[in-house]
């Protein structure tokens, strides 16, 4: 069997980059929504969670509409001679959008648990919001944030529909493991597909199991994690 292992590396690279992106966007959005007390909270939260429920093809459609040659951002990028659609970055973008709600939701859940008095105390001490966020809020919500990042990574790794629509299936560039599985099955190469299936199955499982142990260990070794 003539095996091309590029989908493995592309998948890891894509999922990793997408996770880094969702991490920062996800926790920022989560904190802003947590702080926000207005009437639109429900709507904002709904919009941010929507990618979790929508079919990936619908997301792919939106991404094409925005980043395509005639899209709002796409037009601007094309004028700067930057193309996103059908490049590796499109695969990252698709994975990031699909994984975003998982990061956002878990981080927000963790933020909502924080005793607000701790944050008020930090503010009265004259410390800037930026330092408070990174030195107090994120550490306090860390178990939740870390869990969110792992879920986001696992989800990004498995992304198929939106990726196919915006990044295509370019071997060595945008063909990730899920795409390789689909096209292997379609081409009748079941043994090849099985190998990829096994691989992604074990990577995903390993990541989540490792995370569970690590979180448990963290809770035990750091009595500081949760107040009294």
């Amino acid at each position, binding site marked *: 069997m003539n095996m091309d292992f590029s989908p493995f590396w592309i998948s890891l690279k894509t999922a990793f980059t997408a996770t880094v992106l969702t991490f920062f966007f996800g926790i920022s959005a989560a904190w802003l929504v947590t702080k926000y007390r207005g009437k639109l909270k429900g709507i904002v939260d709904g919009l941010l969670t929507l990618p979790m429920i929508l079919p990936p093809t619908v997301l792919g459609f939106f991404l094409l509409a925005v980043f395509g040659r005639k899209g709002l951002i796409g037009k601007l990028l094309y004028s700067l001679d930057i193309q996103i659609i059908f490049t590796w970055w499109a695969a990252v973008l698709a994975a990031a959008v699909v994984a975003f709600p998982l990061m956002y939701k878990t981080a927000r859940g963790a933020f909502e648990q924080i005793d607000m008095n701790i944050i*008020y*105390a930090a503010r*009265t001490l004259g410390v800037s919001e930026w*330092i408070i966020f990174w030195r*107090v809020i994120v550490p306090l919500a860390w178990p939740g944030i870390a869990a969110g990042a792992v879920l986001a990574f696992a989800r990004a790794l498995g992304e198929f529909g939106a990726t196919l629509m915006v990044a295509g299936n370019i071997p060595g560039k945008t063909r990730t493991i899920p795409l390789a599985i689909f096209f292997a099955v379609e081409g009748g190469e079941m043994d090849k597909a099985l190998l990829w299936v096994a691989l992604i199955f074990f990577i995903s499982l390993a990541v989540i199991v490792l995370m569970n142990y690590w979180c448990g260990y963290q809770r035990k070794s*750091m009595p*500081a994690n949760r*107040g009294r």
Partner: protein
Amino acid sequence: MELFVDIKKKLPDFTLKVKFYAAEQVMGLLGASGSGKSMTLRCIAGIEKPDEGKIMLNGRVLFDSEKGINVPSRLRKVGYLFQNYALFPNMTVEDNIGFGLQKLPREKRNTVVRQKIDMMKLNGLEKRFPSQLSGGQQQRVALARALAIEPEILLLDEPFSALDEHLRYILTKNLIDILSDYKGVTLFVTHNIEEAFRICGELTVLKNGVVESVGSKEDVFRKPNSLSVAQLTGCKNYSTARYLSNNEFEAVDWGVKLKTDSLITEDIKYVGMRAHYIRLASENDRDNVFDCWPSFVNESPFRVTVYLLIGSRPKGKGHYHLQWELPKDKWREMERFPLPWKICLSSEKLIILNK
């Protein structure tokens, strides 16, 4: 050193409307839970925003709705001691104390932290996390953290409510020492009368978000100006009053007529009598002496509360007019006296209330 507060804020249950002035003396905010004490502190600290009004600290405007000024918390220079201390659980004791000193160079910061650790007797606990400290130690860390930034005002929000009686007593004493060295304004929120009396010089009594009484603690305790202030300062016996003449009124709920030693007006609404001011009548007493029967007795370790009914034998528990507090040894003597007891409600101890 002075703080001026005059704010209004609409809350779900009532409208907070407080106005007071505090200077060197520790100002106590006394009130039942849900009377707006903590909300007032939060407005001063900039955690909550009043709907309208003004807050001034040492000539600095912290909040002014007319001019649209609302200085953010971090620029107000307030030290806030939260009820649950709100320590950073992910930081050690020394990091907690030094957290507000980010802008100082490392060496300077360490010096200040060192000094606060000595001051609060936290030596040896520098590397511990808050969860590894006792309640009293946590409170000392929180106070050290608040004082490290050299605040112009110290806000203490029921700091002893989570502690047991013994610790509460020791820590109150420590706090009084610390506050005597502190140069800024201090506000102390509590619902505990004894605490308020020990720690504060001035008192502001709040009820449903409105100031009921302001003044030196002696005045507020000796001459409460309303029924709720009397109750809040620990007066257990009260009755509605009906004016009879300018030195006599009827205590309707107790069914007796009482003489006063100062002139009263027709405005009289209630009368109060502190439980420990009731006494056994002597031969010289002519006025305000009544026959009483004990209804039931409640003993605490050192004191006894006797529930008295005036004028007739009680028909059961819960049938009483007055609570009488007396030391245990006195109570042992009382048990030998024949019934009914002659009890005197001294005219100079009566609290006359017009609202």
